[in-house]
């Protein structure tokens, strides 16, 4: 009996060991994640990889540990909020954008750091798309037509993101002859192996001129290859539209006009200036906008409608609100709670933008570029070429639709090209108010021959301005709680993030940081 039990115990022992095989216990593969090597292995996964690239544009990661937990860096909302708060046409009322607003950032402050980090995160996804799609075409998984469209879209995203970064982290194009001063590294290799890390890290900052060249080359390729025509993904027209922006910064007026001409008949301004925002996915003038869904958006801490409307963290600055060139009865001042197309709302006497409306599910598209900008880019190019007729005509196209009575209020002529350019520049501030466009104008107009801006203009003090500060009739003359920063001050540029400097020996910080 005892022996039987002993043998029984031994059998249990052996069974115990052998019932659990190494295969079941150790050869485990992820349940939540597809191997990165399989990301381009079928047409549907390739399409998903394209969407993954746009995800990086729409959401980013910011400091989240969740890969989809970002704050709209770089194209989902941050480019609007940072672009606005670097300028003087908004007032930051709370702490949220204070470091950007008061230029008290440093190489560790999150706003500028994640602009860089999430920008390059998107660029790497674009580069991996280019390489993955190229291989998939070679392997016959998708046709070259489909592949070219995808590659064109990736090049578009790569180009506009580098362009955005170079405007924040480098001096303007016209700073030196030939734009030979430091820009940002232009990344064209998808990095997913140690070897690629080792070779890419050797590449330091390209010059601003090189960055512009590469941006344009990529946009040309995008124009040639993209067949997509939907608003929320890169299209041929979006590439052209962006080129008008790039050439404007390069002060290549002829090219602005050439590019603008290519698409000027493909879009039309809505008759109501509120329409592009009331129907942000379905209107005749948006050219490229970023998709935001109720289940995936930059969230309560970043979504445009959350920050600018529900939480009222940033208001319109009395500086632009009280500008006499912005007519009192201009439709862009419409503040009627009963009219959803209103572009302004009031709380405690303060004026806020109503361009972003969905305060519950944050589904407003983030407007990256729209037709009005092409028109004003062309207007400025003509004006700077002293073609006052065309310049005036393009300016009026944009301005007239917002006037209460165009027949009496429309501009009829300017005494000089400079006056016309001045009116166009003012019109940009009004038309694109709180669309993130202000910084790139401040940036490109440094040392301008006609209307130079020296550094960052003075701003209204951080905090809630008094209701009286919004009373129309006289221009706002102060007080300015945030002093102007001269153009030669090191704070004009954002510092390269300390994280980058710590792990990249081949990149130099901007001077004096």
């Amino acid at each position, binding site marked *: 009996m005892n022996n039987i*039990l002993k043998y029984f*115990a031994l059998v*249990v*022992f052996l069974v*115990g*060991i052998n019932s*659990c095989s190494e295969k079941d*216990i*150790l050869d*485990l593969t*992820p*349940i939540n*994640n*597809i191997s*990165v090597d399989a*990301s381009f292995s079928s047409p549907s996964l390739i399409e998903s*990889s*394209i*969407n*993954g690239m746009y*995800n*990086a544009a729409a959401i980013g990661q910011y400091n989240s540990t969740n*890969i989809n937990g970002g704050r709209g860096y770089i194209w989902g909302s941050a480019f609007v909020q940072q672009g606005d708060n670097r300028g003087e046409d908004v007032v930051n009322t*709370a*702490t949220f954008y*204070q470091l950007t607003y*008061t230029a*008290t950032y440093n190489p*560790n*402050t999150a706003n500028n750091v994640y602009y*860089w980090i999430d920008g*390059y*995160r998107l660029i790497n996804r674009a580069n991996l798309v280019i390489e993955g799609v190229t291989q998939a075409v070679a392997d016959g998984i998708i046709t070259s037509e489909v592949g070219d469209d995808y590659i064109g879209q990736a090049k578009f995203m790569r180009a506009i993101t580098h362009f955005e970064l170079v405007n924040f982290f480098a001096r303007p194009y016209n700073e030196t002859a030939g734009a030979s001063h430091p820009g*940002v590294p232009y990344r064209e290799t998808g*990095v*997913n192996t140690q070897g690629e*890390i080792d070779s890419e*890290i050797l590449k330091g900052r390209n010059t601003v001129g090189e960055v512009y060249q590469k941006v344009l080359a990529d946009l040309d390729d995008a124009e040639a290859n993209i067949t997509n025509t939907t608003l*929320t993904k890169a299209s041929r027209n979006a590439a052209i539209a962006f080129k008008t922006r790039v050439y404007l910064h390069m002060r290549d007026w002829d090219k602005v006009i050439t590019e603008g001409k290519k698409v000027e008949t493909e879009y039309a301004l809505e008759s109501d200036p509120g329409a592009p925002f009331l129907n942000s996915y379905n209107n005749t003038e948006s050219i490229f906008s970023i*998709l935001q*869904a*109720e*289940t*995936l958006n930059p969230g*309560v801490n970043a979504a445009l409608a*959350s920050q600018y409307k*529900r939480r009222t*963290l940033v208001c319109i600055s009395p500086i632009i609100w009280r500008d006499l060139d912005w007519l009192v009865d201009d439709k862009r001042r419409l503040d009627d709670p009963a009219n959803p197309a209103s572009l302004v709302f009031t*709380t405690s006497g303060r004026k806020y933008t109503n361009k972003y409306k969905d*305060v*519950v*599910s944050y589904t407003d598209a983030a407007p990256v570029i729209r037709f009005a900008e092409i028109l004003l880019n062309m207007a400025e190019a003509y004006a700077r070429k002293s073609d006052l007729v065309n310049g005036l005509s393009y300016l009026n196209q944009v301005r007239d639709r917002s006037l209460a009575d165009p027949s009496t209020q429309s501009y009829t002529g300017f005494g000089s090209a400079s006056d016309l350019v001045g009116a166009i520049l003012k019109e940009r501030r009004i038309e694109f108010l709180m669309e993130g466009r202000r910084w790139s104008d401040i940036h490109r107009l440094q040392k301008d021959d006609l209307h130079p801006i020296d550094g960052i203009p003075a701003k209204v*003090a951080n905090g809630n301005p*008094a209701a009286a500060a919004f009373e129309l009739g006289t221009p706002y003359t102060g007080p300015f709680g945030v*002093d102007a920063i001269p153009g030669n001050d090191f704070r004009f540029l954002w510092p390269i*993030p*300390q*994280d980058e400097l*710590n792990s990249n020996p081949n990149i130099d910080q901007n001077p004096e*940081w």
Partner: protein
Amino acid sequence: MKMTRLLLLVGMICTSLAVFGQRTITGKVVDDNGEGLIGATVIAKEAPTIGTITDFDGTYKITIPGEVTALVFSYTGFSSEELAIGNATTLDVTMTGGVYLDEMVIVGYGSQRKSDITSSISTVNGDDLRGLITPTFADQLAGRAAGVQVTTQNGILGEGPRVRIRGIASVNSGTDPLYVIDGMPVYSGDLGGYASASGLGDLNPSDIESMEVLKDGAATAIYGSRAANGVILITTKKGKEGKAVVTLNSVFGVASPVNRFDLLKTADFITISNEKRTNRGQDPWAIGNTYDTDWQDAVLNNNAFQMDHNLSISGGTDKTKYYFSTAYANQDGIAKSNSMDRISIRTNLEHKLTKWFALGGGLSISRTAYTGLNTGANSLSGNVFNAIRQLPNTPILNPDHPTGYNISENNAVVGQWDNTDPVGDNISNVAYVLEKNVFESTIQRTMANVFASADIVKGLNYRFQASVDNPNTGGFLYWDPIHGDGSGSNGRLQNSTDELLRWNIQNILNYNTIIGGKHSLGITAGTEHQKERNSNFFAVGTDLLNEFYNQNIVSNAYAIQESGGGATEVGIISYLSRVNYNYDQRYFVQASVRRDGISKLSPDNRWNSFTGFSVGWNISNESFMANMSDVVSLFKLRYSFSSVGNTEIGSYPYLGLSGASPYGSQNGIAFSQFGNDALTWETSAKSDFGIDLGLYENRFNFTFDYFKNDIDNLVFSEPVAPSLGVPFNRINKNIGKSINEGFEFGINYDVIRSSKFTWNVGANLTLMSNEIVALPNGGADIIGGSSTNTSIAPNIIIREGESMNSLYGFQYWGVNPANGNPVYIKANGTLVQGDVVTSRYYLFDEANPSVLGESSTLSAADDKVILGNTLPTYFGGLISKLTYKNLDLNMVVRFSGGNKIFNSTRRGLFNQNLNNNGTEILGRWQSPENPGDGVTPILWASSNTFLNLTSDATTRFVEDADFIKLDNLSIGYNLPSVSAKRLGIAKLRVFVQGQNLLVISKYKGLDPEMETSGVDINGTPRARVLSFGLNVGF
């Protein structure tokens, strides 16, 4: 391989014991419970060189010369016994008297006599925790064992304490010890849901018989890859032979915050707020002094009721032993909306089928329900962040608002009342939020094991054990749509399920023998297979139909729906063995080898062997010490060396992965983890030298250890230049080295030992240091340390040559007496002042303070320095246990220090927005004639980020963390047994007790233990608990 090992063992069993001599006596040595005593010494009285040691079941056999008339039996902790032999051939003896000090100590996969142990193990008796009201048993390990540092970082129920055994053994991997309950490695982290739900909270502390803390390499090596952070072995109570013992413990207590913030009252608040504005040339902010509200009342409970009841029945026969307990605990937190409710049942059963074969098992079922709240350190509705910023001149309630609470017209923030501006920092009315919002976690947890134990041949035991740990957590979250966190989505409903399942199968052979009377040999060999699958899913509804829907997610009661989830699996296979040998209880050697294979690493790298080795010399058992045995009862030297591993490195850290990454509503995937299939084990080489000394029959015990942990191949997520765009800008690599080194001292002294009066004092002290030896990227600093928390990371750094996570920031000089500007010291020693008017830096000349010098900078790249280490360099405890007649008095005092804290909460109390401040701000600079405390600069509205440098640490808020605490004081009264019998019970003890009674510290925050990685950031105060209870035995 496995068979070979088994055959080897079987072969050893067959080795016969060599015996020779003229006369042979056999017998059995038992204790007063009748349990055989292993390793008792039996010596021939007239021939002291002849002796033997009892076997594992207490039996002995000794061959003696004819002239010997008596045998002397001794066993550490017992009075020795001398028995005349006469004509007997069998002599049984029962050892009595003295204190049974030399108990068996649970070690990995077995147990050893305490005197045989050559590694470093601290034991905490379950009785020491009796009657304490405690969220988790682990909280109460604090101060009780050298080298073990337990920190309860806040007063939130459901958040487990931070336990560090001999420091931090990793940078990016886990730093928690392995918890093993009755042989089963259990889940100890947060178990899911929406209220904090520590995995340590499910175990009823009353069920604990003992806890063994395995500290050095030799003790932990048997746990191989999971041992780098130490191991805590928990043994639950089992039945003992004898009649049924019924015990009832009941404790009732009230908890209150140990400390509160010293906030401005309305009068000072108005002065300060308006001075912020007028200094800047702006109109006043604060108007109205009708109210003087302490908003801390909105988030803290002063008298939180807590109770704990436990009923157990245990007993057994020589064949069957049983233990059954049921317990109920209910605790209200000192944070409003925080509570815990736990009901648990545990049974342990063991039955001897035959003399050599036993079966048994244990089953524990518990249901622990937590309610929680938003405690986010920077959340607008985070309880402490919010309360300390509220305006004291505003009420909490407003009958005119539809909700009845003081909320702004558009419901966005708390109402500003008569003040001219909305409250700063966009905070909500936290009282409304706490009243409405719901955070819940309910854990249903089953822990079960079955075992079979067979004594195959004498000395050889085979044990099979299969265990399972299966916590299932249901979570529920509701955010009110009107105000607070839910207003951004018009309300939120969320339900979740976390299913965790871990099984573990062990086959263990234990062989013990004594050869030739003096050679004790113990062998342990076995296998362990473990696998876990952890999955969760959740459903979310936002944009709610109505706030009526606040108890569960209800189909179609919301406009937007979302769901999510995921699953991970981990498996480990191990082969383990340990050999320990001692010669004559004098010379000890132990070696262990464990080979682990783990699913977390690539097939090429997943197997690794971990070894442990230790030696000991018990000098007190040497013959030359015999004449000192009255004085020196124990004098042992120990040395150990081992290499162990750390596997808390994520589930699939070596693979290149993509993750779901949709664009709007379109499916997407993208690169989410950089692969490195060369990734291998993080190893920790631990060495330990120890001395154990016992004097006067172990009345005085002293333990000393020197330890050193060399951690190599640290799995580091190496920072990669962000401009390369790889996921998280990190790659998992084996780079980096660090060292923990230190000394531990422990003493235990029975000051008074008499039948009526006993007094025992124990004390322990640990001195230790940590140094980062090597870092990736050529030793580049890691700013942000190991933290991903954005409130903490900017203040710390990992730098070669420094202690891990050191504070890093600017040096503060003080206030410019001429203009109130803050003045800092640049790295090169020059002074710069931050001009509040322009937010720019200018040189500061002490001799000429009224002049703004040349324009300068305070550079984050160049001017930051190490501001202090965040890891305590010394800590320890003092425990006094005193009984006098029927009274007992117990006390635990704990101390720690040598570390610095960056008090970020205190910085928040200098907020320059329209928010309340701490009273320290009254010392601000007002004018050259009235320069204030010299530390607090001029007030300047809305300049928080610049004036207080909210993105950087500065020495202005760096403080010493040293403290002494009276952790625990209890007074009990035992009813005399005569009286008890009259009541029909066996015994009755009543007691009153205070926990966390007194803190002595210069720290200006609430409590110097409320730090995470050296940063104090808006934690809920810890709790002080006063309780009353009784223990009844039937």
